[in-house]
Structures are given as structure tokens and as C-alpha cells.
């Protein structure tokens, strides 16, 4: 499946708490090209997760338009968004969120249960996804038998097993040490450069953001500045 671009126009998002309006995003514009790897930074509570959820169709904007690939998300119903998510996005979370009673392979297989597919095809896909993240030999381990870094790899395999166009990662290295973080970031990098996935990654860590081609800064409800990572851009174009 080809990579998809992301276009947000004048996106507003507000939450209501005790009838009090809490504005989070206020007229945000954003364009991410197909196959781009973008990092999203900003102070805590600035709305990074909210933005990621809007792009992934988990939430809908109060106002404005969100287009991912050919889909105009703000006009889709909840059930249409759910179906859309299963095909077009893969989520990666800070806390991995694996099902503890299932093995690595079974966790990766979970999203495929939504598709009509021969079991041999399913097995092949799971094995491929696990090989890509470098866990081809850990398929029968349960999450509690894996390290944090390995758990995150399983979560990444789960995100890519359906071959989505877009990967959305919310602080994927937030809970990992520097070395393991580096491995996970290299893996995301490879998914971007070699498999052409469009990636949006929220992070607090400037070094993590350095792996992306572009870093967007979110503050006070809008993207107030951005910077292009030339070093990474160079390695990306070199490969």
C-alpha cells in the first residue's frame, strides 16, 4: 500500500469539562508529505496526543478538516473511522499495551482477526512483521518474558502487520533507556526509509526527534515553528 499524505486545515479542538470549554488546538494547519517522518514536540499538555488522535481518526475535530490519504476524516462516522483505522493506521504507544496472556505472535496477529484471511497467509504476515522488528526468534514469548524494548518491538510489529500507510507513535521511547530507545528509533527510521511508511512521532526528547526528517513544535494550540533535520535528511536520501 502506498504512503499517504496528511493535511490538516484550520483544526480546532476543545474539550468540555463542567461546561467549561478547554481549547486545545486553535486553528492548526499541518501538511505532512507521503513517506515523510515527522517528529512532534511541545510542552506537556500542549495537545500533542490530541493531534495524533485526530490524525489517526480516534477523535474528531471540533472544527476544521483532517485529510489522511484520500480520506476526509472529519466527515466520517465513528464506525466508518473504526473500519478505516483497521486498514490505514498503526498506533504505537508509550506503554506498548500488549495483551499479557497472548504470545508475541498472537499479539501481532490480533489486528488480522478483523480481516478475512487464510490462516497460512496470516501466519506468514505475522512472521514477516516479527522478522522486520528483529524478533523472529521470540514469537512464543509472552510480554512478561520480554524486555521493554522487545515489548515495544512487538507493539511495532502489531502496528505494521496490516501494512498501514501511516504509523502514529506517541512517545514510543518514553519508557526506555537511551540504548534501547536508539534501537527503536532506528527501527522506525527503517520503516520510513525502506517501507515508505508515513510516520508521525510525538516525543519529548530532542535526540529522538533528530531521527525524523522534520520536527514540528506545538504550542498554544498551533504549530509555531518547525525545523528540518539536515543530517537525517542526508542519510535518508543517501540510502
Amino acid at each position, binding site marked *: 500500500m502506498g504512503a499517504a499524505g496528511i493535511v490538516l486545515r484550520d483544526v480546532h479542538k476543545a474539550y468540555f469539562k463542567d461546561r467549561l470549554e478547554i481549547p486545545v488546538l486553535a486553528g492548526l494547519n499541518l501538511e505532512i508529505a507521503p513517506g515523510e517522518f515527522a517528529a512532534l514536540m511541545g510542552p506537556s499538555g500542549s495537545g500533542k496526543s490530541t493531534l495524533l488522535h485526530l490524525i489517526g481518526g480516534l477523535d474528531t475535530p471540533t472544527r476544521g478538516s483532517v485529510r489522511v490519504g484520500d480520506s476526509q476524516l472529519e466527515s466520517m462516522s465513528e464506525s466508518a473511522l*473504526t473500519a478505516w483505522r483497521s486498514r490505514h493506521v498503526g498506533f504505537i504507544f508509550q506503554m506498548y499495551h500488549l495483551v499479557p496472556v497472548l504470545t508475541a505472535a498472537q499479539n501481532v496477529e490480533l489486528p488480522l482477526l478483523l480481516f478475512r484471511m487464510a490462516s497460512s497467509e496470516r501466519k506468514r504476515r505475522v512472521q514477516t512483521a516479527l522478522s522486520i522488528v528483529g524478533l523472529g526468534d521470540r514469537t512464543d514469548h509472552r510480554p512478561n518474558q520480554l524486555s521493554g524494548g522487545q515489548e515495544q518491538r512487538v507493539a511495532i510489529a502489531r502496528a505494521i502487520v496490516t501494512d498501514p500507510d501511516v504509523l502514529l507513535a506517541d512517545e514510543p521511547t518514553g519508557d526506555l533507556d537511551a540504548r534501547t530507545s536508539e534501537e527503536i528509533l532506528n527501527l522506525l527510521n527503517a520503516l520510513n526509509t525502506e517501507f515508505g511508511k508515513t510516520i508521525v512521532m510525538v516525543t519529548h526528547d530532542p535526540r529522538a526527534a533528530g531521527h525524523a526528517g522534520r520536527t514540528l513544535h506545538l504550542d498554544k494550540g498551533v504549530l509555531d515553528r518547525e525545523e528540518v533535520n539536515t543530517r537525517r535528511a542526508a542519510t535518508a536520501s543517501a540510502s
Partner: protein
Amino acid sequence: MTLGYVLLQNLRRNPLRSGLTMVAFALPMAVFVVGISLVLALQQVSKANEAELRLAVQNRIALVNALPERLRREIEALDPDKRRIVAVCGFRWFGGRVPNTKSGIQSLGADPDTFPIVYRELRWTDEEEQSWKRDRRAAVVGSNVAAQYGWNVGDRVTLESTVPPYLSLEFVIVKITDATGRVNGMYLRRDYFEESRAERGFRNPGCNVFWLRCTSIEAMREMQTLIDEHFANSPNETRTMDENAFAASFTEALGNLPGLMQGIALVVVFIVALVAGNTMMMSFRERTRELAVFKAIGFSNRRVFGVVLSESVMLAVVGAAAGILPTAAVLGAIGVRMVGFLPITSLTVSPTAIVIAMCIALSVGVAAGLVPAWQAIRLNTVSALRRVG
């Protein structure tokens, strides 16, 4: 891997809790299925009784007050052309037991001439009927009693009566019956019984109950009023009722068993539903994030609802099966003999009872899973994911 497999694995998440919840289903369902079987067996007995078109005539005041035996002729005279009554048979309570044993046998003296007619469902062979009529000491024994004491046809057995004049009489077994409702009884000849009483100075031949076999339901209704009206304001006022009414009045001490079972079942089901519902709610509250991830991955509300509900139903059905099937197997294997009040051959778990119990378990599983399944639908994926930061 299927979704069913995922559900099954989820039960392993907290094995102790899953186990206890299953026990909470297993135990009441085991008791329930036995109770239901009992009720069904009794219902079968009463259905069989209905088919026999029998009326019981007893003393209006109490069963123990015997009616004079001449009342049989008077009753017969109420239907001179025998349009409504097939035959009348008088019974006197013998109250016997095997010497040196404690438990009594429901033993009754019956009029020898009409007993085979009024109780024709015992399916008499010519030979059995002739033996009964020929030998004054003849006795017909229910299969439970015969099995309990190891008696066979042709055996001579002695029974002591526990009521005055405390006769000790010898009988010859001419027939063993497994007819519905008769398996715990023993029937002897009243003429032999009365003569032995007379020898001890008890010269008041009488019957605790006259059993009438009627020709039709209408005939039964007519005779019921006719008899009681006939003996009204006489020294021997009667109370006439059909066989099930008679049996019910007789087992009143046991209470209304079906009603009681229903009451217990309702309470138990309610409690199990609460316990299971609470457990399911706890179990899913701990997994809010996981359900949110399922939704983020693309599981629709309908699917998530199904996942939660199925887990609850699975727990309920597996738990109930774990209680019911071993109970049924054990009862089937050891075949508990019901000797005593209840006119049932042996207590086995009926397939109907199993089906009823499983349906109840299923409904409780659905009921218990409904709230958490609804909560799973309502779950706000975004806030659930955010809660962990």
C-alpha cells in the same frame, strides 16, 4: 488464532478469580440440576397418576381414622350399572418393617379381588395375578424395596407391624414392580391382615383409603361429589380427591417442593448473577486500556461488545458445565436409590434438567456481561489511552 482463543486465554489472566467465579456457577448449578431432576421426576409420577383416573376416598377428619370396610359396598352401590366406576379397592396401613431394621416400608393391605384392576398399571401377568389371588400371604413389592433387601419373586419374607396389634406376618413375594410411583411400596392382602388382627381381638375391619378406578375424567368428577355428598352428615364423613391431590396432601410435610425449588433457583440465580456481574465488571475495569487498544486497532463497537459478552458467557457456561456434568455422571454411575417418601425409582439427572440449567447459566452469563459490555461500547478510547500518560 481465533477470537474465541483470545477469550479463553483471558480467563487465564487471573486464574484464581476465574476459578472462583466458575465455582460460583458450578455449585449452585449442580444443586439446581438435581433439584430440577427431582421435580421433573415427580411431575412424571403425577402425570402417570392422572392417566390412571383414580380417586381416593378417606375419612374427612384424618387419614389415620379408618373407614369401616362396608363403605366399599356403599360406594359401589352409588354406581350400580358400573358406568362410572371400574372397581373399588380398600387399603389399610400395615406400617411394616423388616425385623431388626429401623426404616419402615410403605406397606399396605389391599382388597385381593380388585387390587389388580385398580392398579392394573403394574402390568400383571396371568401367573402373577393368579398367585396373588390364590395365596393369602401374597405380596407385591416395589423394585426399590426389593433391591434394598435383596428380595426376589418366590421369597418368604417377614414384616413386623409398627402399629397395634404389632403383628408379625410372613409373606410370599409374587411380583416385583417398577411401575412409576409404586417402586417404594409393598402391597399385601387385606383379608390375611384383617384375619390376623381379629385373632388378636381387633375386630374392626376397615380401610384408611378406598381407591376407585373410574371410566373417565367426567366420571371422576361426578363420583367425587357424589361420594362426599352421600356420606355427608353420617358418622363416616368422607373426603374424596384425585390421586395427585392425595399425594400432595400426603407429602405436605415436605412442603411444596416444586415451588421451593423455584424459589431457591430464583434466589441463587440472582445471587450468582450479581457475583458474576461484579467480577466481570472488575475484570474489565482493570482492562480498560486494553479494550481501548482493541478499539484503536480497529475493533468495532459491536465486536468489542461481543468480546466482553462472550467472555462472561464463556465463564458462566464453562462454570455451569463443570458443576453439572460431573454431578450427572456421578449420579448416573452410582444410581442413588430413592427409598422413602418420594415415589421415584432412582435419582438421575434428566437431560431436560441439564438443558434448563445450561439455559439459565447462559442467561446469567449474558446478564452479567451486559453492563461491562455496554461500558466497553461507551468507553472513550482517547481518554482511556490518555489515562496512562
